[in-house]
């Protein structure tokens, strides 16, 4: 199925007749538990490419099945036999760590539409690596800043026991001024949170912060709502994106979460993006879709100025980031990670559809904590 889709995308592009001059390799997750994220990134990306009207860009799409070994094989194939100029698409930080360092060292440009592990922002930064989404800590830092503003003094914090989970709690603690009533590392992929919820109930916390992306967040929120505990919850947007909110249902209503994007951010690019995405795919876009869309537009803006074969000029064109982002102002910091405003959003119900409404700014023009370690 996925091979067929990729082949269809390729043949559709070839069928337009022009000789493809720029080749883009997209490795993303299109099957398995995390497929919703990869599909959103792909759809956002391809929407921008289609809207550009350019027929000299060929996008090769492959499914990594969320497995690092497969991602590495695909990347070797794309670099060595497909000879792509630019790579993008990876969702998960552990896959990005397996693929990105090797790819950029072979003079391929890598534009990250999602994963932002701290090593690639700090000591392991590279001139050919650009992150268009966020550094992993960012949304959690914003959650900590929001919790201060909301007057929380004693938080119970929780994340899965893996690198991005540790980054998440580190990010929250970096900005949260209050005390910690408890700090729990859960198992990655855990689906039952009864034990953790009992500990939250027994603690004297006044708020709960959690980072549980995808299905883990759905399980936790449903069980938490059913437990009857009234302590307010904060978290990053990853458990409240458009793809999973419908599966959480009423349990998510009113929860505040932090994101660099929302569908009601007021600018012309975003309005057009939300409308055209809905028209094309028949569903509301998620933050992942907006990241895919922005990544493609960054690429297009750089291609307008320079060819990837002229690596220095192309790199400068990417660094300038002269494109209309769905987030409004967008610029890169010295380590090629975004400097951007992060918002607090609240989950609401519009008709029958659960979605987010922007409450206000959590962190203005926020850069990441690792830029100083990057010697480029």
């Amino acid at each position, binding site marked *: 199925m996925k091979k067929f889709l990729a082949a269809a995308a390729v043949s559709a592009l070839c069928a337009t007749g022009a000789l493809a001059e720029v080749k883009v390799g997209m490795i993303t997750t299109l099957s398995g538990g995390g497929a919703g994220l990869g599909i959103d990134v792909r759809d956002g990306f391809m929407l921008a490419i289609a809207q550009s009207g350019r027929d000299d860009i060929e996008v090769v799409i492959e499914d990594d099945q969320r497995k690092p070994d497969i991602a590495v094989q695909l990347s070797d194939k794309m670099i060595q036999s497909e000879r792509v100029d630019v790579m993008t698409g990876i969702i998960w930080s552990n896959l990005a760590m397996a693929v990105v360092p090797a790819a950029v060292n072979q003079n391929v440009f890598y534009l990250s539409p999602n994963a932002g592990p701290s090593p690639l922002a700090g000591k392991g930064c590279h001139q050919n690596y650009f992150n268009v989404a966020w550094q992993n800590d960012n949304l959690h830092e914003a959650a900590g800043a929001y919790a201060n503003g909301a007057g929380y003094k004693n938080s119970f914090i929780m994340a899965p026991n893996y690198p991005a989970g540790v980054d998440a709690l580190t990010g929250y603690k970096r900005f949260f001024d209050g005390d910690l009533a408890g700090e729990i590392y859960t198992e990655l992929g855990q*689906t039952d949170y009864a034990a953790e919820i009992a500990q939250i109930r027994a603690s004297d916390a006044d708020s709960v912060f959690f980072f549980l992306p995808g299905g883990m967040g759905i399980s936790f929120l*449903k069980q938490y709502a*059913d*437990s*009857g505990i009234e302590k307010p919850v904060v978290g990053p947007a990853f458990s409240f994106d458009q793809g999973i909110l419908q599966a959480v249902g009423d349990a998510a209503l009113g929860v505040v979460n932090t994101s660099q994007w929302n569908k009601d951010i007021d600018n012309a690019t975003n309005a057009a993006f939300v409308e055209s995405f809905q028209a094309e795919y028949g569903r509301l876009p998620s933050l992942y879709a907006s990241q895919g869309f922005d990544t493609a537009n960054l690429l297009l803006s750089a291609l307008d100025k320079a060819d990837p074969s002229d690596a220095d000029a192309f790199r400068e064109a990417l660094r300038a980031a002269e494109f209309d982002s769905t987030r409004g102002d967008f610029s890169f910091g010295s380590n090629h990670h975004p400097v951007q405003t992060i918002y607090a959003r609240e989950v609401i119900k519009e008709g029958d559809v659960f979605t987010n409404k922007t409450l206000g700014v959590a962190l203005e023009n926020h850069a990441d904590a690792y830029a100083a370690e990057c010697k480029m």
Partner: protein
Amino acid sequence: MSSILIIEQILNGLQFGVMLFLMAAGLTLIFGVMGLINLAHGSLYMVGAFAAAAVAGATGSFLLALVAALAAAALAGAIVEMVVIRRLYKAPHLDQVLATFALILIFSEGTRWVFGSFPLFLDIPDALSGPVTLPGGIEYPLYRLTLIGIGLAVAVGLWALIERTRLGIRIRAGENDREMIAALGVDISKLYTLVFALGAALAGLAGALVGAIQSVQVGMGEPVLILAFVVIVIGGIGSVRGAFIGALLVGLTDTLGGVFLPELFKLFMDNGAAQKTGSALASMGIYVLMGLVLIWRPTGLFGARA
């Protein structure tokens, strides 16, 4: 650490255990009667959850959703048995593993094809939502109490079926000597299909019940499948009683280990390090348990003596 918290955690462990039992019972029956290792058992769990979510979405009735889950999983199980599994009884275990692994991929991609890649919504019924106050001032979700009740009822029902009915006699006979009961005129292939469908229905029921408090998504069955295998190895392969005891042991070990090991490490470590070490060790807890049981009894707690 208060006694209320400890009792609440024991209830959580019990609830986790009885749901594991629903999975493990089918798995161990199928292995016991037919000698088949069925890796696709987790897919039947997923089929049950998706069928329940679809029917609950269309009709709004949780009861109908449970019926649909049972029916869909039993039907899927029966079809799979007749089309694929039947050809594998004489094959070596490696071929069975390979074929049923292929079934996992087919079920996963098939479900994605029908329902899409995004998780589905399945909520607990209003009548069972929210917490109840138990004697001693323990607040506990009513739905989880109901799950414990349903799990125990299924365990009793399964015991009665196997020990007290004609079908049960055939199942036990099939475990002991399949050539002999075939020679006595029992339609062995019909019996196999029936046992497979029964196991599948139990997995589907577990998927629907658990799906209401977790997420209904593609691939949800595989993590549970691994635990179910641990359960039947501990309990003794082929023994339903063993699966019950094993499931409760695994449920309690996993839940209580996850809570108390970090607390234990806090006595001589700082908070963050204790959490990380404690939760890492707790996730090994059930495998350590399995190892210890196997050293003590190499065929599991209730396994046939080799």
